[in-house]
Structure formats: C-alpha cells, structure tokens
C-alpha cells in the first residue's frame, strides 16, 4: 500500500470519517459500511448457515435410510425439514448469491467507490445473524417450527405456536434485509456507474442483479404481509386463515407463492449473472447474445411474477387459472432457454480452460437443463396433479437449487476468490471438490424423481418398504455431498491464509473489477478507471490492453 501513503485520502479531504488503509480482521465483525467487507460478511455467514442446513439434511437422510422412524423423533424430523428449507433458502442461497456476490461485485464492476447507501447496506446485512439466531432459538422454545418452509395454515397454526412465531419473525427480518439490499442495488446500478459506462456496456451480472432486485422489491413485501397475518392468527386471535371462523387457507397460499415463486428466480438470476461472467472469461470468447441474455433476465423477472399458482394446482384452483398459469409457466422456459443456448454458443469453439470455476459452470449447465426440464413437466397442470407433493417435486427443486444455485455459488467463489482475498484457491483440491459434488448431486437427487413417480410422498419420516432401495441410494449420495464440502472448506481456509498470490487479474478477464488490486483497496481505485472496451471482448485485439502494464499474466492468452 505504498501508493496510499503518498496520495491524499479522499475522505480526509472532507475532514471527517477517515478510515485506515486496510481493514483488520476484526473489522469484519463490526458494523462496517465498506461494500467489500459487507460482501465478505454475507458470504462467510451464509457458508456457515450452509453447514447448519446441510447437517440437518444429512440427519434427515440418515433417518430415511430405513423405512421406519428409528433415528429422529417425528417432531424433530419435521423441525429439521422446516428449518433445512428455510435456512438453505433464506440464510444460504439468497444471502450468498444476492448479498455476497451482489455487494462485493456490483460497485467494482461498474466503477463505483461503494454502494449508494453504505449504512443501509450494513443494516441489511446485520438483520441476517439475528434472524438465524431466532431460528436457532425456536429449537429451544418448543422444538422448532414444524410446518415446512411453506408454513401453510392450518398446519402452521396448530403446531408449535411459539417456534412458528419466531420463524415468521425471522423471515420478516431476512425479507426486510432483502428489500433494503435491493433498493441499494437498483439505485447503485442506475446512478453510480462510471460516466463512461453505458447500460449496454454493463457486465451481465449487473443486469441479472437489476432483475433480481426488481423481483425482490415487488414480491418480498407480499410475503411480509402473509407472515404478519399468520402471526396475528397464531397470537392475537384473528381468523384470516381459520376456515371454521370464515377465514381462507388458500389466501395464504396465494400470498405466499406470490413471493416464493419469484424467490426461486431470486435464487437463480444472480447465478445466471455469475454464469455469464465465468463462461466467457474461461472460454476466452465474447459472450454470445449479450442483449438476449440481458433482456431475458428482465423477461424472467416480469413473467416470473405471474406464474405462482402453478404451486397450487391441487388447491381447488379454478380450471381457467390452471390453464393460464400452465401457459405462463411454460413461457418462463423460453427466456431461460435463451440463456442456456447463449452460454452453449459462447462455449462453442472457445479456448476452454478447465479451471474449477469453469467446471462448476459447465456442471451447472447440465444440471440446470435437467432441472429445468423437470420444471417444465411440473408446469403442466395434468402432470403436476399426478406428482404433487411427491419426491418428484423434491428432486426437481433440488436439481435447480443445488445443481443450479449452489453450483453457481461455488463457480463464483472459485472465480472471484482471488479478487476477494488476493490469493488463488488450490486447483487440484477444487477439482476433487467438483467431482465429489457432481457425483453426489446426481446420486442424491436423480433417484428422487423415480421415487416420486412411484408415489412416495415428500415430508415423511416413515415410508413404504418398497421405496427402501432407492432411498438408500439417495442417502449414500447425501453422504457424498456432505464429504464434498470438506475439501472445499479446507481449500478456502488454507488458501485464504497461504494460497498462491493472485495478482490483480489472474484470469486475464476484462470486466472492471480486475483492473484494481486483489484484494481491492478500501475505496476500490486510486483514480476511477475509464472504460475503454466492453466487458467481453475476448479474442479481439483489445484483450491485450487488460491488466496493468508490465504485470506478468498468470494464464495463457487467447
């Protein structure tokens, strides 16, 4: 940081809040307003919650290794299935993909010194740990919420009232966090780009975050409304969702899915953004169909707001609604297909580097196509009614959420870890991690489709002995997945402390975050960069302009 001493610190010029040259380790445990610190805070916390949620999954799979209920008590099983879903969605994928990557990367990608509202950003992060604490507390005050992550009434109103209330409160907190974060992302991307960057020169990750933020802004408050009504029903004697007093449980389902279907796009759109960054860098080719990918994110955002009833085909839904929502659901597959084909076309004829980041990206492509196709089958009402509430559904959404979102988060970590820490992750260990994850995913989630087709219901601790063989296969797969995280966590911890120095641009990438140091200095650049080329102009002459002059490049050039 020799340069920092000679230059005049911008904040000192204002005579106020100066900051040190470099954050110390304990700064990461404070109410810090630097977007990079907040990004790391989101990522590290969410990776811890990932372990908690994964631990619950492994215990559930151990229970399901045999048809009888012999390992967990049924109530505890219910509490685990509820909190596994809740934690994995609200405290793992959402904060990691949106909070973590979004906060860390957006200002760096658009050439801003920080987010538009740094303090609001910190508040948004610090709503997450207490939410996790509330969920943990719910286990000690009544054994945890029992009603599944969907918490449909009347079940959620007649089981475990106090834990259910804590669960609702936790979700309102993470929802608030999500809304505040989205306000920040939208305003930042809209107003804080370097003047030289036009909308169509923005990295596609930023486009994905625009779509994600709009969705979160419009959908999350509706979930908050549903949960507030649920809290009132449970604790204050109202009867919104109590059929015996005139209430209507389907109203809850509508409110819930109005948020929770868009929530699956919240969990996958940022991942699509990560894909659009990782693939061109490691295939050394310009992205195929920049505008198609950018606009398809917005299309998914728009259409995704009008598909929610496909979760409710068996809830006495009127036939015209089934037809409408079947059609709208199938339409969502179109912009998603646009992205898939664009990535494949980007890979086509590229000089592909099989880095771990790229392996996870390509793995995601195959997994997500499979999960997307089973999603299309579920979108068709006649078939959905047949497999509703079976393991087919469980298999489907784990394929898109694990094979999609989690693979994408891994890919992003392998890609941007050098930027975040200044050190490379160990590639051989990364490849071990990838192979284990890939095998584990297929082994765990593929047989579930078959189980569902045979009629095994989801959310049960006991099942018919005829399903035992496939369930044991699934359980073995889940153990492989559990083992797969070990090389990853070892890799991260070891590389963070003693990995190979990365330099500013180890991948020879062209987006703006690679023009500053790794890790970037506190306000990202001494002097803001000027955009001289688009984000994906690989294989063209301009690629040679990337990277600070005189720095050796770590990888082969196109």
């Amino acid at each position, binding site marked *: 940081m020799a340069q920092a001493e000679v*230059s*005049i610190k*911008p*904040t000192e*010029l*204002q*005579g106020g809040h100066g900051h040190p040259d470099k954050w110390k380790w304990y700064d990461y445990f404070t109410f810090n307003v630097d977007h990079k610190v907040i990004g790391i805070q989101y990522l590290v916390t969410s990776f811890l919650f990932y372990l908690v949620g994964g631990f619950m999954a492994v215990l559930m799979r151990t229970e399901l290794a045999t048809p009888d209920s012999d390992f967990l008590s049924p109530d505890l099983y219910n509490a685990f299935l509820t909190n596994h879903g809740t934690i994995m969605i609200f405290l793992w994928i959402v904060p990691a993909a949106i909070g973590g990557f979004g906060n860390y990367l957006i200002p760096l990608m658009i050439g801003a*010194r920080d987010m*538009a*509202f740094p303090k*609001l950003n910190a508040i948004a992060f610090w709503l997450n740990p207490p939410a996790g604490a509330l969920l943990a507390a719910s286990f000690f005050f009544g054994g945890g919420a029992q009603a599944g992550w969907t918490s449909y009434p009347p079940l959620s109103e007649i089981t475990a009232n106090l834990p259910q209330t804590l669960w609702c409160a936790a979700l309102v907190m993470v929802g608030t966090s999500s*809304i*505040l974060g*989205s*306000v*920040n992302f*939208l*305003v930042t991307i*809209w*107003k*804080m780009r370097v003047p030289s960057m036009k909308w169509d020169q923005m990295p596609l990750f930023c486009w994905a975050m625009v779509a994600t933020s709009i969705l979160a*802004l*419009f*959908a*999350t*408050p*509706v979930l*908050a*409304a*549903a949960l*507030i*009504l649920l809290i*009132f029903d449970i604790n*204050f*004697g*109202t*009867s*919104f969702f109590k059929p015996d*007093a*005139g*209430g*209507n449980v389907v*109203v809850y389902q*509508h*409110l819930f899915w*109005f948020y929770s279907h868009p929530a699956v796009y919240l969990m996958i759109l940022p991942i699509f953004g990560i894909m659009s960054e990782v693939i061109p860098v490691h295939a050394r080719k310009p992205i195929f169909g920049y505008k198609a990918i950018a606009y398809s994110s917005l299309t998914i955002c728009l259409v995704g707001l009008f598909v929610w009833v496909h979760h409710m085909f068996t809830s006495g839904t009127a036939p015209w609604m089934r037809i409408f929502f079947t059609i709208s659901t199938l339409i969502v597959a179109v912009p998603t297909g646009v992205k898939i084909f664009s990535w494949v076309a980007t890979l086509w004829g590229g000089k592909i580097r099989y880095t771990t980041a790229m392996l996870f990206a390509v793995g995601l492509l195959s997994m997500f196509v499979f999960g997307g196709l089973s999603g299309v089958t579920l979108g068709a009402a006649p078939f959905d009614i047949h497999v509703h509430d079976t393991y087919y559904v469980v298999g489907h959404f784990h394929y898109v959420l694990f094979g999609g979102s989690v693979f994408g988060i891994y890919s992003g970590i392998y890609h941007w870890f050098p930027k975040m820490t200044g050190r490379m992750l160990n590639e051989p260990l990364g490849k071990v991690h990838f192979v284990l994850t890939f095998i584990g995913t297929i082994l765990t989630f593929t047989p579930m489709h078959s189980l569902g087709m045979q009629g095994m219901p989801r959310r049960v601790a006991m099942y018919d002995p005829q399903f035992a063989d496939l369930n044991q296969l699934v359980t073995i797969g889940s153990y492989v997945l559990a083992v797969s995280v070990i090389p990853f966590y070892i890799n991260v911890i070891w590389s963070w402390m003693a990995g190979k120095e990365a330099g500013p641009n180890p991948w020879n990438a062209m987006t703006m975050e690679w023009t500053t140091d790794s890790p970037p200095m506190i*306000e990202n650049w*001494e*002097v*803001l960069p000027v955009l001289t080329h688009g984000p994906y102009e690989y294989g063209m002459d301009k690629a040679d302009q990337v990277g600070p002059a005189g720095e050796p490049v770590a990888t082969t050039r196109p």
Partner: protein
Amino acid sequence: MQGAVDSTPVVTGHEVAAHEEHQDLRVLGLITFLCSEFLMFAGFFAVFLVFRGSNAQWPPEETEVELLLPAVNTLILVSSSWVINLGTKAIKANDLAGMRKWFGITAAMGAVFLAGQVYEYMNLGYGLKTNLFSNCFYLTTGFHGAHVFIGLVLILGVLWRSRRANHYSDIAHTGPEMAEIYWHFVDVVWIVLFTLIYLLTLI
C-alpha cells in the same frame, strides 16, 4: 465554499475528491423503498377484497363502519399533503420560518388524524377478534396508522433538526423532501384504504 450538490461543503480543488460528490440519491432510494412498501399494503388489500368477494354480507351486520369521522379524517390527511408541500416549497425558497410553520401545521394535522383514528376505534363497539371483517379492518387501518405515526416522527425530526442554523436551506433540503414524500405515500395508501374499507360499504 459550497459543494456542487446539496449538503456537504467540500473543501477541495483536488481531483480525487470528486467521487464523494456523487448526486444525493436518498430521495430516489426512498421512492424505490416505498414502491416495495406499497406492495405490502397491496397484500392486505388483496386479502380484504377476497374476503369481501366471498362473503354475502360484508361487513357483517354487527360490525358496520362509521363514515362521518373517517371522512373528516380523510379530508384532514389529504389536505395535509398540500400543507407539507408548501413547507418544502418554502425551504426551497430558503424560507426556514415558512418551512417550520407549514411542517408544524402538517404535524398537528397528522396528530389530529391519529387521535381521530383512536377515537373511532374506541367507539366502534367491536374489537380485533370480533369477526373476519374486524380482523381486516383493525389490521389494515392499524398498519396504516403505524405508518402515519412514523411519518409524524419524521416531520418532528425535521422540525427538531431545523433548530440548528443552516441545517436546511435552499440547497440542503433532502430531509424535508423525504419527509414530504413519505407523507404523500401515507396519504395515497389512506385514499385506497378509505375507498376499499369505507366507501365500498355504501354500494
């Protein structure tokens, strides 16, 4: 020397400080947030409309709504939106006393509205738990009332801060502007709420 944008005086001719002067985006941020907030009320309204549509007698007989007092309250709240606008216009013309006067009147009108709401609650003769209609009625008006209270606190906060010399002026008025926008939001929500819960009972 005054900065190019709003509040902070930037003592510099130096190149690197330029980024600190990025446009004041707080107003934009607040509007974005309020779009989201409105959707929460939309959720409550949707629930209300579903129940209205699926019940023959709505509101049920023993839980009729009062109309006169809420109508007066509506007049007060809606006109207060004009009053607060006079306040921000005043500060934009560097008229601090004018702003304090209009904001003070707005705060008083807001307080009267809340008092009226409480008076209405106490004289309706039914409570939150009475039936489905009263559930919706108290929840929705209650949440709106809470937002009016927050708006009132914001206005009082602006008044409190305006005691400091030069805190607000024709080039530094983001605080009053945001309080005004929030107040308009509360007003708009009330207009929808009043139409749905009160006026529709006339049909």
